[in-house]
């Protein structure tokens, strides 16, 4: 059993040195420093995020997505053919993302690696395995304005472009490549019609020919009603059991060959869970899914929390994982 994070990590904390990135961005915005200062601060904060995940006891870490403004625009601004528009609320949270839309007359295309350098930087600074994490085409496409392309065509074009990104990442032989698709969940703020058949088609295009262990993560709600979810071409499926308790239903007929991402520590609220309750949930998951692969994690990325709480949440994840005495 493995303790891991889901995606992002706070970019700033209240402790000494933990404001480096915020201060650097402020100085660059005011014309007091060049962009290389942001670069240096981002590297330092990325290294710190990795170190803290390891110190908390995680077995598999992320780079903390320290450079990401939001879950959508990091990849969207690095693909050809997208324009970035106004701010929209990220689900029902108090955070925002900028909404992309296809540029008229420019073909949507992958023109070069997006996450490769970040992955390699993280690996140089980590002593544990690192997973590459990217937001999937269904989520980018659904939260964007598809404009003249229409939803289906836009999502599938994104899937084709990001398939090249996955192939490029796979060449670096990462431990895992994780695709995040929160837009497919049942969430009270979601007002679009969820298109399950488009989701399936997009996942097929996205993963085609990618030679690496792939995982699919969803959060901010449940995916219990997504048809044939576990047949999708991923090795591991990660769910949010805090905002999506109905996800427990998915464990009833769990395919032995699939890994489970068990998001049981609430990454949206500061209340610290009782370790006993977490251990009980891990035990329940083992009982339902058998002795297969389980990645225990927070319910989603940790940037919704103050840094100090984020650290403590990861310590809880690690304790709940390793309390089992089961090694897989």
């Amino acid at each position, binding site marked *: 059993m493995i303790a891991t994070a889901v995606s992002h990590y706070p970019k700033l904390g209240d402790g000494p040195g933990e404001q480096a990135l915020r201060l650097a961005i*402020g100085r660059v915005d005011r014309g007091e420093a060049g962009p290389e200062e942001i670069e240096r601060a981002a590297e330092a904060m990325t290294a710190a995020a990795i170190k803290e995940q390891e110190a908390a006891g995680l077995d598999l870490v992320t780079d903390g997505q320290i450079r990401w403004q939001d879950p959508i625009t990091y990849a969207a601004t690095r693909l050809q053919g997208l324009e970035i528009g106004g701010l929209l*609320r990220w689900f*029902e949270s*108090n*955070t925002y*993302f900028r909404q992309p839309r296809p540029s008229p007359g420019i073909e949507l295309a992958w023109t070069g690696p997006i996450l490769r350098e970040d992955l390699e930087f993280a690996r140089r600074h980590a002593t544990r395995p690192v997973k590459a994490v990217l937001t999937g085409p269904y989520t980018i496409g659904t939260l964007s304005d598809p404009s003249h392309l229409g939803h289906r065509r836009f999502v599938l074009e994104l899937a084709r472009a990001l398939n090249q990104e996955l192939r490029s990442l796979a060449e670096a032989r990462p431990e895992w490549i994780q695709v995040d698709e929160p837009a497919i969940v049942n969430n009270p703020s979601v*007002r679009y019609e969820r298109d399950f058949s488009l989701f399936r088609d997009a996942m097929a295009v996205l993963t085609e020919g990618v030679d690496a262990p792939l995982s699919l993560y969803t959060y901010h709600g449940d995916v219990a009603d997504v048809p044939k979810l576990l047949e999708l071409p991923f090795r591991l499926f990660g769910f949010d059991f805090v905002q999506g308790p109905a996800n427990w239903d998915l464990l009833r007929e769990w395919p032995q060959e699939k890994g489970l991402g068990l998001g049981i520590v609430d990454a949206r*609220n*500061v209340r610290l869970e009782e370790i006993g309750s977490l251990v009980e949930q891990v035990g329940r998951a083992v009982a339902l899914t058998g002795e297969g692969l389980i990645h225990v994690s927070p319910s989603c990325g940790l*940037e919704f929390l103050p840094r100090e709480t984020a650290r403590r949440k990861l310590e809880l994840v690690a304790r709940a994982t390793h309390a089992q005495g089961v090694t897989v």
Partner: protein
Amino acid sequence: MSRESLLTTSVGSLPKPDYLVRARAARARGGITQHDLDELARQATREWIALQEQIGIDVLVDGEQYRGDMVAYFAENLDGMAISGLVRSYGNRYYKKPIAVGPIRRPQPITVAWWEFAQSLTERPVKGMLTGPYTICDWSFDDHFGSRREMVMALAEVVRQEAADLEAAGARYIQIDEPAVSTRLDELELAVEAMGIVTSGLRAHTTTHMCYGRFEEVYPRLLDIPVDEIDLEMTNSGLDLLERFREHPFTKDIGFGVIDVHSHRIPPVEEVKGHIYRALEYLAPEQVYIDPDCGLKTRTVEEARRMLETVQQARDEVRAELASGKVPSPV
């Protein structure tokens, strides 16, 4: 609704002048006393009240010169609420999110002295400005209740006490903002129930401001919110909601936002008049308050002044045209 038609007002917050921004930063570093900061907030309040009077606005606000964040301000003044470390909202913007850590109580009135001060400066009515219980809950962490419903209800009780004290102090208008309602439409009933606690027994004119929402999806259920007036960001949402009023008439007063405040652009008076005339296709003039879409605190002082002037001038011209019967044909 037996009152003058098309009264002008504003949503609540107004930008802080530079001297107050600097003083707040100095206060955060311990460089000046709270007393000195409060004196500068009073000075800024005087300036905003004088400016609104000079422009001709009918229902004034104090501009919230003494507040930082609309949720943290109340949390800081309630027992049982604490403030967290920094969390990011977007880009390089961070805020300290409140946390419920125990039973919530209001040890003393929070906004009443500030309201009394602002009202003492003018003969025109000044609105009492509160943040609603649903929004305080939704924008806070919970380390105590374990249930959103319990937390919202506990907050409703303290907001009710504050509203009652504002009314007792003489407030004729009380606004209870609920911008978070639009993000969790599945909890509209909870917000409605909580607002019922806050407004029960009040004789003052009650308003709630909401924004960032696709309200057409909760209309007409929106009208269940127990207030006299709902203030909506009509212009930023492209006036999309108006068509729904034909089918289901808007049965309350409406605060009708006529300027998009998320842009630096000051629209021409004619454009704002067009929005007012659009409103009057669906709503009676006595039912409509005219204001910018949302609080102006993110604009510069100069932009805020010009937006308020534009609102006022558009209203004055529409009123004159209505009175003389020279109503232009719909645009």
